[in-house]
């Protein structure tokens, strides 16, 4: 019924995926633009979801595949919207598709190229938050969609310096001749009737809280880094270790970069209490005899089954400690977390093997310019402003938003907002 209508969905995380599928299933043609080489977003980086502890990739991978196969979804990976012009009832959008240097049509995803890359295992892997390594030619992660290799021009010797080992080896290894060092960015233009923004979030960079020792002590990691250590498709195959170091004691610090004016973020990120609870659970489950501390300001277990999950954690013997640590440093005993345990009003200096920072949520970096070019209003922190009664609408008619781009949400809420926004789109364009 809407065969001629077209919607641009920006962002291929769980929100963008759900919205695209809903729109496409409703007969709308979807252009799904993803900046990264694969869709999947933040959710695909996580090991499991809370509070049910479902395997994230088991839930998400089928949806990602469905996106790639859907006849009404045009997936543009490695792509960015560069211009949007209001035109008639709709928009004319310009999209830059960045070069992959691997022909998507030809690549069979055999992986031989990656094996022979001179830099194989030497470049920090984005998907693993730098915990794992890749080469200059790589597949973002095993379940990536599109299931195509790409070359990172920043590290590839051929692209950067013009010369690699003879061959180069990847070219020699590729039986289908998919590698194309001459690939160039392409500018695509589309006419769309509506736009749905689902650009998601970044995590707060804890370098901004120097007292917590991130970037200084390798044993201080972010929650997303821990996700990668826990995930079966992560650098350690799900084993919680740093190289050969197997931590036995863990200290989780919540509200890192949330509820914190010193870093310009007085808001609550909504998800950290629960994902930390989940982490604590998995640690207890996988590391025998693990000693786990969780420091918090308030535990906000507001969702369905959340409080019960929190309670389960306590039954497992996790020390929930009310008080925000002042600092993390190292002495002869190892990492020391200095924190006031408020219920005993006592300052404790807790020695621990690993500190995990529950970093708060920030809008995706680099979106401000795009939003302002469109005239989209954002709040003080860069989240898109919406009205309470239409939480999926931006101030620009025809531009909708879902997921964390309008404010912190967990996965169920993001999915719900995606479906709502999709519905609103359909309503708008008909």
């Amino acid at each position, binding site marked *: 019924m809407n065969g001629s209508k077209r919607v641009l969905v920006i962002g291929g995380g769980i929100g963008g995926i759900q919205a695209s599928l809903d729109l496409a299933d409703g007969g709308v043609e979807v252009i799904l633009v993803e900046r990264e080489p694969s869709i999947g977003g933040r959710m695909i980086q996580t090991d499991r979801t809370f509070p049910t502890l479902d395997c994230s990739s088991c839930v998400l991978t089928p949806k990602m595949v469905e996106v790639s196969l859907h006849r009404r979804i045009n997936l543009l990976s490695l792509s960015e919207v560069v211009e949007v012009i209001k035109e008639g009832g709709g928009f004319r959008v310009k999209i830059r598709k960045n070069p992959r240097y691997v022909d998507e049509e030809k690549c069979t995803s055999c992986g031989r190229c990656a094996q022979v890359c001179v830099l194989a295992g030497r470049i920090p892997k984005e998907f693993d938050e730098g915990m794992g390594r890749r080469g200059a030619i790589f597949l973002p992660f095993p379940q990536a969609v599109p299931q195509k290799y790409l070359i990172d021009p920043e590290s590839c010797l051929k692209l950067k310096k013009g010369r690699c080992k003879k061959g180069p080896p990847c070219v020699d290894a590729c039986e289908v001749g998919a590698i194309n060092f001459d690939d160039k960015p392409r500018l695509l233009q589309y006419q769309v009737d509506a736009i749905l923004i689902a650009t998601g979030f970044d995590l707060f960079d804890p370098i901004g809280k120097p007292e917590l020792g991130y970037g200084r002590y390798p044993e201080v990691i972010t929650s997303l880094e821990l996700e990668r250590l826990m995930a079966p498709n992560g650098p350690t195959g799900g084993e919680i270790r740093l190289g050969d170091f197997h931590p036995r004691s863990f200290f989780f610090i919540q509200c890192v970069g949330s509820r914190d004016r010193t870093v310009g973020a007085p808001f609550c990120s909504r998800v950290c209490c629960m994902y930390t609870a989940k982490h604590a659970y998995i640690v207890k489950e996988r590391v025998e005899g693990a000693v786990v501390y969780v420091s918090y300001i308030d535990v906000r277990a507001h969702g369905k089954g959340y409080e019960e999950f929190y309670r389960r954690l306590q039954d497992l013997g996790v020390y929930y400690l009310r008080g*925000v640590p002042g600092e993390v440093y190292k002495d002869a005993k190892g990492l020391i977390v200095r*924190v006031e345990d408020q219920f005993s009003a006592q300052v404790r200096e807790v020695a621990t093997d690993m500190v995990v920072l529950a970093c708060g949520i920030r809008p995706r970096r680099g979106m401000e310019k795009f939003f302002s070019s469109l005239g989209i209003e954002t709040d003080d922190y860069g989240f898109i402003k919406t009205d309470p009664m239409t939480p999926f609408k931006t101030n620009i008619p025809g531009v909708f938003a879902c997921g964390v781009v309008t404010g912190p949400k967990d996965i169920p809420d993001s999915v719900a907002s995606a479906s709502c926004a999709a519905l609103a789109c359909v309503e708008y364009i008909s």
Partner: protein
Amino acid sequence: MLGLLKREDLFACIQCGKCTGSCPEAGKTSLNIRVMVRKVLFGDWEDKEVPWFCSSCGACTIRCPRDIKPSEVVVGLRAQMVEEGEIPSSLYRALENTLVQKNPWGRSRNKRDAWTAEVGFEIPFIGEDTLETLLFTCCVQAYDPRCMVIPRNIAKVLHAAQVPFGILGRKEVCCGNEIRRVGEFGLFKQLMEENEANFERYQVSRIIALSPHCMNAFKNEYEGGDKKAVHYTQLLWELIQEGRLIFKGSYDKRVVYHDPCFLGKQNGIFDEPREVLKAIPGLQLMEFSRSRENSLCCEGGGGRMFLDVEMGERNGHKRVKEALALGAQVIATACPFCLLNLEDAAAVLDADIEVRDITEVLMEVL
């Protein structure tokens, strides 16, 4: 009643405890700054001893996620006691001395320029010419024989680098940084006004502060605002970059740098002192685990140089032990209070380690 704070400001406190977790005095003294903020909010803080435990390192205020400024709550409580006249006797002396002689030690104001005697050349009074660059000595460096070497060294460096500068001599009065922190706002204002009048009268366009405490006062507390005050380490790094200091010889020692709270944490000057040290030939710079923003307070601030409080292990002792564990031969710092406290600790611990001001290390190779 709370100095610069109003009680209403404290309602925003969510009792997260970041302050207490950050406080170098928490645990070892009975100061629990979170509890103090809470009790002050409810108007039932009564203790007269605990507020004196704070060393004004500023960590609580810098890190407070709600911008409550707990260290100002301490200052407020102190101000209340100052107005009521109930303060520790040692502080009584320091304040009386500052009122009368313009320095907390009660040394004669007329001897404030005594340190110039041994520099070997005439140091002009700032008013003698349009010199514009003022070397601000302040009290510890002017009177403490151990610290007098700092102004002398800087004077020599400026002289050698042909930077014209002058001093206020007997006209200089205490910068008031600690006076404000012990809650004597009236006296602070008096000192500020006297110094600012001199800055104005002699058209000072740049102030070289020897102590981070003075620099902080000029930059952050004086009504005139940023009087182009720089810390001497900033000046030294400038001179080194401009190639105006010529090094002779080599300082072949392992040196660990201790960040003073008022230089580092509170004013963000972390790199210049390190750059100066790194520029010294032969010097091997080491880092404490707790360095930069996490530097462990020497406990010399907030009037604690004149106050005697009961406490557990002195942080200076911890610091010296940390330096020994690192294998450092020298602890270098850039604040007279840190210098005195750390040197004292090294002596008490009988530690085989030198404690030096950065200027002292520098002079070895100039």
